[in-house]
């Protein structure tokens, strides 16, 4: 026999203690220890218990009465009938006695019936002596004991008919239910046990204690022991009664093997099962309470509650394992607080804590304890404790500034100092002043407590000790060997410690080793050396641990090493807080950490190696003492330790503050510079972020929110991602954008094996897009869905390509969430996708999948309890082709299939696959709307050969390289300038090259590692369109043939005509775009009616914009592109008041155009907020010509409003800006036309778009109208314009 090794269950079993021989192989405990039965009583164990009390229930009484009637009839003792019938009204004990007497009599009369009916005395509250005598009587005429070899499982159906008709037993009867399996397992175990018992009793007849006792016992307990006396539970069952009466059931034919004895035997088992089940549940309950009482924090329970009553703010400081996160919310709830918010820095912690606390407060299935994170919540009106993320609580403050929905706020893990933690602390400090009734509990590790207490006017601190075993500390500083290569980490000191452990501690003493290193390459070199050592010694299993490993590989560190072998886990600081590994006894601390720092000047992330802080050094040490005493080796000097920083740098001082500032402003905190941060970030970081937001168009020049800024502040995503989503929804390109943004928001699916394994690289080749990394990600995601739909093993597919499948599941989830988010804010049309109608077969299949999922989850739960044992070969990570998708994969796969409509997903992924170049360009532009100004221009000297590095320049940072993970790093030739004769052009050829195909490289982030700056996640984009559409300032010369964009990229057009076309398009596009955003925002705020989420006006504008944009994107203007260096840019402007043609300009200004202003720095005329006309100094030769053109007036018909006028270039530009802007005539005209078309479409559903090849216009016509139209051309009446046709029809 083997039982679960789960300690909880084991202890449950242990309660039922007694000695027996049947023991679990695993834990040595028998589940039936309690079922100590005498062999003799086997027959008595088939007992029929009927509560006398029930007989007083009239219906039941009559029922039973008749049953007895029948029985006595069979027994031919009809004389007692009336007596039995009268039972109902008698007193309990009397009834009892009578009842059992009668039955007994009748039964014994039916000779040959082995069935002994016995009423157990304990059924009544006051047992009578008489009954025990009867008891004895019964046992005296013992018959042959019944064997336990009957296979009840064969008769499941009949037994269910007899016993399980009540819905209380529905779980036992339901196939696939856990209880069903538990029950049948119990039945067979019980029978096994009884069989053995019987066997034993044959050899040693049990002694009978009943005879020993005298009669002077006052309690009248049965002296003949029977395990059934220990059971306090029974059940009532009509069918069983029927069976008793008639020996059969009313509506079911029982098998003849199922004799009366067997049915009674089964009944005994069932009663034992019910008892066992109750004990199990009670133990579970008892254990919860017991564990709670044993947590270190339990001693401080009253102190915490009392202190909070007296003070507004309390700091609870306790180390890992003291139980603060789970217990404090419960203490508050018990103290009567009702609206408790507990913040967590991580989403996953919210969910798991809410589950844990719900379980501990016995609210597992209620909603008193709930969670709410970015996209999910379980909160209801009954919720008393809510776990939520810090970010979410902040977001709630936009609608509830004083957080009046809460009475207590608990902030957990304050010491981690996440950006939102710090922000929240600042905001709450203000809120507390206005809400004296609000309570605040700060929970922290015992780090830097003074800072938090001091920040809240010396709030009281309650210190709770953690649960740690003593740890021996040893400093083993590395003596530097000058000859060794300083770039590569020397693994010798680490090996030396492994040797030391081998030498000093016998292999029989368990305990693993955890090595903390700074980064991946360091891990590699130590792992390599350690593996060599391990192979020689056969005493170690070496496992790396870092975030770039696949989930499976990471999971290995939790597996158990076999006897006599230790795990050696080589990890980054991921094992410091995020991953907790039990059983670690030895720590080696390198004292180093690689941390991402942020350079606000270039908006560049920098991965640098630092000494750790004293706090994290202590944290690392503490990891050795979780399960027993440990040892920590520090590979630095004690003096080094003393020189360490006290605490790690808070996140606020390391990351861009864009989102934070945006949120502050939307919450009504207009000036971030004056915010009372607990430790303020640097001023320059604040200023840079404000500048960035202005560049992104989220903040106006007065630092108020622009429409897009407002929209962004509502979306809980990064500014860049938010912009892409908004634009994607506007241009009806949302699906690929959702996929790409989701892919950008999760960790890359490419594992580090993806770049080292040549097989994986070849297999991945088809996924790579020469448009850039975002498209490669999109391809990979789409292909994954394709493989999934085809029902193939996606896990193997992913593995082969060096991809981590987990990321794709995350992407799917995030993609859906982004979609929901946009719908919530009325940015996406259509609510939930309409209900799919499934055929019965599909439904059945789905039902089957659901059941399988439940089964797999259960299996996994069990598996999780029993960790796998590693083997020495486990170090190698192999991919075998035979290996199918494991259980984990299956669960994920089924979850995915059930929550997603695969066919729909496939459809959309197909859509992305059949992208036209135009679509690709549109996607690029949408992505750029978020990324800009993150673009770079290629260096003229690039070779575009694979083995050399290609350099790129951004506005602020020259000479950036392609990151080795980029698609372009492997295929740099696709970046080669086009229109340059096919081969690699010489730098001189590139100068001033006129082409319509110039490209820029847009990037998602900059990263510096090993002192090399890299562009990460790059994509090639059309230069002209990207620059002109997104630049924050476009400066022109007098005829617009030269544009300087954002002060560093210069565009030159060959002639004024091209220039005019480009500028016209840009102005119209940008103002339409802006107008549309404003409309959309109004819609969002007004929360327009449910059915029509996007207003018709917005729709019109969208169509208009989309068509114009496509036109602009496909246009092939020739131009030259050049990077202008800052020194040159400074001297490029005319400057205020010194415009070349001063007189002309003066004239124009006085002409009365109000919007025309001179730019205060650059000179020239500011046409719109981004467009400054004629502020560029023309190159000397063109200067005179420039003055001439500037003042020249020409006949011009505005394409927007159709008004003919005589204008200069400037006047024309001004007119266009006004005309196509919001409320402008041109825009109105376009809209009117659109509306007209729309109306016509609605009028006649038979109309379809028809493109006439002769007049080159697209109409919406019915078939007859098309014929008419064609005829009009055939007749050749040139006078009929297309408009007339339309009107005629």
């Amino acid at each position, binding site marked *: 026999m083997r039982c679960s090794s789960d300690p909880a269950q084991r202890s449950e079993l242990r309660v039922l203690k007694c000695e027996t021989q049947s023991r679990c192989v695993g834990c040595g405990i028998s589940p039936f220890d309690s079922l100590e039965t005498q062999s003799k009583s086997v027959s008595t164990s088939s007992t029929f218990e009927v509560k006398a009390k029930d007989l007083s229930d009239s219906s039941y009484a009559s029922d039973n009465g008749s049953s007895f009637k029948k029985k006595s009839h069979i027994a031919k003792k009809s004389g007692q009938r009336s007596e039995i019938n009268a039972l109902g009204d008698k007193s309990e004990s009397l009834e009892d006695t009578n009842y059992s007497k009668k039955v007994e009599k009748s039964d014994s009369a039916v000779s040959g019936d082995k069935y002994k009916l016995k009423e157990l005395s304990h059924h009544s509250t006051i047992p009578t002596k008489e009954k025990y005598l009867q008891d004895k009587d019964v046992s005296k005429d013992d018959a042959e004991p019944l064997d336990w070899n009957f296979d009840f499982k064969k008769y499941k159906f009949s037994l269910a008919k007899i016993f399980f008709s009540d819905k209380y037993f529905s779980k036992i009867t339901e196939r696939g239910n856990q209880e069903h399996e538990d029950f049948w397992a119990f039945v067979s175990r019980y029978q096994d046990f009884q069989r053995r018992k019987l066997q034993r009793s044959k050899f040693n007849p049990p002694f009978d204690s009943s005879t020993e006792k005298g009669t002077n016992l006052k309690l009248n307990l049965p002296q003949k022991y029977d395990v059934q006396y220990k059971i*306090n539970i029974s059940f009532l069952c009509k069918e069983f009664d029927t069976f008793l009466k008639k020996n059969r059931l009313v509506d079911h034919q029982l098998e003849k093997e199922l004799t009366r004895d067997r049915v009674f035997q089964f009944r005994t088992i069932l009663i034992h099962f019910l008892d066992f089940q109750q004990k199990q549940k009670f133990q579970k309950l008892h254990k919860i309470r017991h564990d709670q009482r044993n947590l270190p924090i339990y001693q401080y329970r009253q102190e915490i509650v009392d202190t909070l009553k007296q003070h507004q703010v309390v700091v609870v400081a306790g180390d890992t394992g003291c139980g603060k996160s789970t217990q404090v919310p419960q203490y508050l709830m018990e103290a009567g607080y009702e609206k408790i918010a507990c913040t967590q820095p991580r989403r996953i912690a919210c969910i798991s804590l809410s589950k844990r606390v719900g379980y501990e407060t016995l609210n597992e299935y209620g909603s008193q304890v709930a969670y709410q994170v970015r996209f999910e919540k379980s909160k209801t009106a009954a919720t008393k404790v809510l776990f939520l993320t810090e970010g979410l609580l902040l977001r709630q403050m936009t609608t509830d500034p004083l957080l009046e929905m809460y009475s207590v706020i608990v902030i957990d893990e304050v010491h981690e100092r996440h950006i939102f933690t710090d922000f929240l602390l600042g905001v709450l400090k203000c809120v507390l002043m206005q809400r004296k009734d609000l309570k605040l509990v700060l929970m922290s590790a015992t780090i830097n407590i003074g800072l938090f207490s001091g920040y809240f006017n010396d709030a009281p601190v309650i210190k709770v000790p953690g649960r740690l075993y003593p740890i021996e500390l040893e400093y083993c500083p590395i003596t530097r060997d000058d000859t060794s290569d300083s770039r590569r980490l020397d693994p010798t000191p680490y090996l030396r410690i492994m040797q030391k452990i081998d030498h000093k501690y016998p292999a029989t003493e368990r305990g693993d080793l955890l090595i903390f290193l700074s980064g991946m390459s360091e891990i590699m070199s130590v792992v390599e050396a350690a593996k060599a050592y391990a192979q020689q010694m056969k005493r170690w299993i070496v496992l790396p641990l870092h975030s770039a490993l696949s989930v499976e590989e990471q999971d290995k560190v939790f597996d158990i090493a076999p006897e006599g072998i230790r795990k050696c886990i080589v990890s980054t600081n991921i094992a410091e807080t995020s991953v907790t590994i039990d059983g670690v006894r030895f720590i080696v601390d390198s004292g180093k950490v690689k941390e991402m720092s942020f350079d606000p000047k270039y908006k560049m992330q920098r991965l640098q190696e630092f000494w750790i802080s004293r706090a994290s050094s202590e944290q690392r040490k503490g990891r050795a003492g979780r399960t027993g005493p440990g040892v920590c080796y520090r590979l630095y000097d004690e003096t080094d330790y003393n020189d360490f920083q006290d605490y790690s740098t808070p996140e606020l001082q390391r990351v861009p503050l864009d989102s934070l500032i945006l949120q502050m402003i939307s919450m009504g905190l207009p000036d971030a510079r004056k915010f009372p941060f607990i430790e303020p970030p640097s001023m320059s970081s604040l200023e840079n972020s404000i500048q960035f937001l202005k560049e992104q168009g989220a903040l106006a020049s007065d630092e108020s929110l622009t429409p897009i800024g407002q929209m962004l502040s509502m979306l809980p995503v990064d500014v860049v991602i938010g912009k892409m989503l908004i634009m994607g929804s506007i241009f009806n390109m949302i699906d690929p954008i959702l996929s790409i943004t989701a892919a950008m928001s999760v960790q890359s699916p490419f594992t580090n094996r993806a770049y080292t394994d040549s097989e994986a690289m070849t297999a991945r080749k088809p996924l790579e897009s020469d448009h850039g990394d975002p498209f490669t990600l999109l391809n990979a995601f789409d292909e994954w869905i394709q493989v999934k739909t085809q029902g193939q093993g996606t896990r193997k597919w992913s593995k082969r390509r060096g991809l981590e499948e987990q990321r794709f599941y995350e992407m799917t989830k995030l993609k859906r969430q982004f979609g929901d988010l946009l719908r919530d804010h009325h940015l996406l049309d259509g609510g939930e996708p309409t209900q799919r109608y499934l055929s019965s077969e599909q439904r059945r299949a789905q039902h089957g999948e659901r059941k399988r999922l439940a089964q797999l989850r259960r299996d996994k739960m069990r598996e999780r309890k029993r960790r796998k044992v590693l083997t020495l070969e486990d170090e190698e990570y192999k991919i075998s082709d035979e290996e199918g998708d494991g259980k984990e994969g299956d669960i994920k796969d089924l979850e995915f299939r059930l929550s997603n409509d695969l066919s729909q997903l496939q459809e959309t992924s197909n859509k992305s696959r059949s992208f036209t170049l135009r679509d690709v360009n549109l996607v690029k532009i949408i992505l750029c709307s978020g990324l800009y100004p993150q673009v770079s221009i290629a260096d003229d000297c690039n070779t575009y050969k694979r083995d050399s590095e290609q350099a790129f320049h951004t506005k602020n940072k020259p000479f950036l390289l392609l990151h080795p993970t980029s698609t372009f790093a492997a295929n740099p030739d696709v970046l080669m300038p086009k229109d340059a004769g096919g081969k690699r052009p010489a730098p001189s050829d590139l100068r001033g090259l006129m082409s319509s195909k110039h490209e820029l490289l847009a990037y998602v982030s900059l990263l510096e590692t090993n002192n090399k700056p890299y562009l990460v996640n790059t994509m090639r984009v059309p230069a002209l369109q990207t620059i002109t559409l997104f630049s924050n300032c476009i400066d022109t010369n007098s005829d617009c043939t030269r544009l300087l964009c954002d002060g560093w990229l210069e565009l030159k057009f060959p002639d004024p005509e091209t220039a005019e076309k480009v500028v016209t398009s840009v102005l119209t596009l940008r103002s339409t775009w802006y107008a549309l955003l404003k409309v959309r925002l109004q819609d969002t705020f007004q929360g327009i009616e449910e059915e029509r989420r996007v207003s018709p006006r917005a729709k019109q504008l969208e169509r208009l914009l989309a068509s114009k944009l496509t036109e602009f994107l496909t246009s092939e203007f020739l131009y030259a592109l050049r990077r202008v260096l800052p020194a040159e840019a400074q001297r490029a402007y005319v400057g205020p008041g010194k415009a070349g043609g001063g007189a002309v300009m003066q004239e124009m200004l006085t002409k009365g155009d109000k919007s025309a202003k001179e730019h205060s720095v650059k000179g020239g005329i500011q046409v719109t907020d981004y467009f400054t006309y004629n502020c560029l100094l023309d190159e000397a030769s063109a200067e005179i010509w420039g003055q001439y053109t500037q003042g020249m007036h020409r006949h011009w018909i505005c394409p927007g409003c159709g008004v003919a006028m005589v204008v200069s270039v400037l006047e024309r530009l001004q007119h266009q800006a006004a005309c196509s802007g919001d409320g402008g005539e041109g825009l109105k005209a376009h809209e009117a036309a659109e509306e007209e078309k729309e109306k016509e479409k609605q009028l006649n559903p038979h109309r379809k778009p028809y493109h006439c090849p002769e007049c080159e216009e697209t109409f919406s016509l019915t078939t007859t109208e098309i014929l008419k139209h064609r005829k009009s051309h055939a007749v050749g009446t040139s006078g009929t314009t297309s408009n007339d046709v339309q009107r005629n029809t």
Partner: protein
Amino acid sequence: MSKRFTCTSCDFVVDYHFKGRQPPFAKCIMLLEDCYIMKDPFSTSGGFVTVGGSCSLCSKDVCLSADCSLFYTQRFCLTCAHRNQQEFPKQIQEEILHRAKLRD
């Protein structure tokens, strides 16, 4: 409505829903003593947990834990059981002694 059950022997405290023999939320179940019963907090589909009862001698409330009470045709708190050891059959006597030893 739930009331609070407190074990007088250990500090086990829990809210219960019903006291008696036939819980209204599990009609077919019949208990052989008056029990403190709560709806099963570990399940969504009904069920119940018996958490405690009253000692048939001293009528103190005791939980079902082996450290606190014993059932042998009636509920006894461990103190009463210990005091009246001789009243029980041999097997139970051994068990009482064993439990008492574990508890101390």
